[in-house]
């Protein structure tokens, strides 16, 4: 099977920008004589496929002919839909990554995780305190953390996951917020955790507590809200809405631009 598939020509990106590629003559010539793309073998859920060596895992899965239903989202490393586990030849380790941003390697044996079973306790943010009690109440299992650091090793964002769980154990909300800020909630930490912690939901809770209770409040915002409520802008809005297109244009092109400097 893999041999047959190997005959495929250069992987044509199915969403190549047709209008964006004004090829020069020289490039066209080069293409005629193009060296065949280097291919590697990957085992998608155990089945061998030849795919271009420079593919992402997601690109390889689609190149092989799968239409992804679960396991693709933003395709850019923001949504965490494409958690993937893999092994490499001659290596006993389990590796983790996002399918959209991890490149394939020859002999890679991979499976996507269609969903991560994780609990998310229901809570009322208004009734929580921004301290250790929130974690004690909602995620008592974090106190079982054995500090093995497997979660940190599993994180495709290279976050210090264990450190933020330890910070949560100390009730240091700000630290948890800061260290978990870039978390994508892919769940790979949780699936590897021997203490069965759902790290990313702990991080999310800490972030919401920080934003709600600890982040400094903006005085400017309060003033602006008062102005709006008092109807300060009503008259100007009415004027702008009634204004002819030509007058609006004049006003628009004459407006001053605030300087960049702080």
């Amino acid at each position, binding site marked *: 099977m893999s041999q047959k598939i190997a005959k495929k020509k250069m992987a044509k990106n199915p969403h190549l920008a047709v209008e964006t*590629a004004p090829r020069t003559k020289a490039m066209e010539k080069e293409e005629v004589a193009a060296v065949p793309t280097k291919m590697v073998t990957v085992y998608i859920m155990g089945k061998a496929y030849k795919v271009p060596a420079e593919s992402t895992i997601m690109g390889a899965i689609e190149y092989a002919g799968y239409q992804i239903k679960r396991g693709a989202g933003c395709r850019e490393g923001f949504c965490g839909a494409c958690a993937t586990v893999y092994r490499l030849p001659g290596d006993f380790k389990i590796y983790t990554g996002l399918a959209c941003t991890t490149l394939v390697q020859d002999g890679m044996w991979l499976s996507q995780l269609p969903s991560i079973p994780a609990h998310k306790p229901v809570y009322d943010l208004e009734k929580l305190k921004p301290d250790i009690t929130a974690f004690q109440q909602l995620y008592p299992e974090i106190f079982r953390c054995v500090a093995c650091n497997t979660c940190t090793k599993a994180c495709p964002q290279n976050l210090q996951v264990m450190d933020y769980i330890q910070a949560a154990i100390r009730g240091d909300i700000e630290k948890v917020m800061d260290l978990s800020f*870039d978390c*994508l909630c892919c769940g790979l930490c949780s699936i590897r955790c021997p203490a069965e912690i759902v790290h990313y939901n702990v991080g*999310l809770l800490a972030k919401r507590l920080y934003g709600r209770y600890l*982040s400094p409040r*903006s005085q400017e915002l309060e003033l*602006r809200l008062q102005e709006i409520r008092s109807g300060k802008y009503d008259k100007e809005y009415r004027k702008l809405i009634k204004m002819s297109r030509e007058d609006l244009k004049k006003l628009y092109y004459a407006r001053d631009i605030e300087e960049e400097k702080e």
Partner: protein
Amino acid sequence: MYPEYMRPSLKKVEETRPRRLELQKSGKPVFPPMTAQEREEVLKKFHPDYRPDALRQVRIGPNKGELMTREVADLLESHTRIDPTKFDLSRPDFETDILIIGGGGAGCAAAIIARQHGAKSIISTKLRLGDANSMMSQGGMQAAVTPQDSPTRHYLDAIGGGHFDNKPELVRALTEDGPEVVKWLEDLGVIWDKRPDGNNYVLHGGGTSRRRMHSCRDYTGAIIMRTLMDEVRNHPEDITVMEFMPTVELIMDHHGRCAGGILYNLETEEYFIVKAKATIIATGGFGRLHIRGFDTTNHYGATGDGLIIAYRAGAKLLYMDSVQYHPTGAVFPEQIAGFLITEKIRGAGGQPVNRHGELFVFPKEPRDVESAAIIRECLERKNGIETPSGRVGVWLDSPLIEMLHGEGYIAKNFPAMYRQFIRYGIDITKEPMLTYPSLHYQNGGIEINERCETNIPGLYVAGEASGGVHGRNRLMGNSVLDYNVFGRRAGKYAAEYAKNVKLGRLTLDHVLNYEKELKRAGIKTDRIAPILLPLYTPEEVRKRQLTAKYEGTLR
């Protein structure tokens, strides 16, 4: 790592950098902003919407005869996925106050607010909750909060950026609700970037006359979206989330009111009838239609599903002749082609420069103008840099940012961007990024008023699926604001409406009639819509997929 042949050009960028840094430090525009006439010229000649074959007339439906983006017209001239005669609508599988179609930012905001107004809702979402473009926005959200700014100034910026085609009452709602949304989100736990005095840290975006871009590092969308999702999940008694369950048709009642939808379980292939007193479409945009073959910054699910189901039910669309290309999508490395490079990079002082290391455009023109100028630089002036796969782009000089704001600024403020490039051996604190416009946003959509109402009673629309807020060009940071402002409004007004409505007999006649209209217009096609998922299967594989009958793009 950039290939060797790009080195000479990279060297030029380095050489011109000190001079450009001085310009940037002066605080004045680093390149003269275009006049109205110059803007018009560059748009007409180089914006993809103006290509002679970009538009065609749609032959059926409420906007019949209107010129639309070709791929949108195709989407509208498609068959339904279902056989309406097979559904017994007198026996709904679920009943609720509000059916919310789409689990992104607008859908979640609507559900949270609807609940506060006493309405229960079902969120029908094609992929997971939060699988949406909302999750991906990096740069920020506009809102006029600083003393030197005002909501009416924001109004003027937005309407000028939209070429004065925006619906005024929608722009007022957008800009006037802005500060309230900043507060609402903070109360829900969103962490805004702050100045030492506690006020929000704000930056410029393209087309803004005041710095008003509020951000959460460069994970703005991810922070907001996950906060909203988490809040939705805190109310399972009132909000039911149905994942991998897209709505594939609306249901009407015999008075012509919207009364719910037909949901499709993507995995078991079952259909379910949801009867709802009001329905909110919050399905987002259409980037995955790859208009004109462009790469896209969009989410996998952005296939314009809401447009077609609303159109079949008789909803009017607005500005479907206008597409937004983000000025800076990645073109190298190949694996991340299309990847959004946030406008915040330019907001923080990053400059687009050509292969000679020269500035050629004011870095903060409105998006369509900036995009057209970049296309001109590459295609007409031949000052772009070609990639090994035949793409072309201009440099976006990011190292300037660290020189302006100090070392470590990028790591702190652009962690997502830094991560995305360092994987491929490109350190954006030391080397520029190679970029070209990428298909980004559906400027038009289903026409709404400031209460998110459409021309169909009981049907509300919020977020990118709607049309009119941004005219024919959206400014950076106004879509994050849009889905919050109008998501909240849709939730409120739909909940109020749902209190008093008594639905009549349910029907799918509009779907049957649409099929008849297709036939009468002589349209012969095997297209099926909503298409739900884009098709990325290579040609070679498709040649062997010889099952007798497939449904649209689904396999």
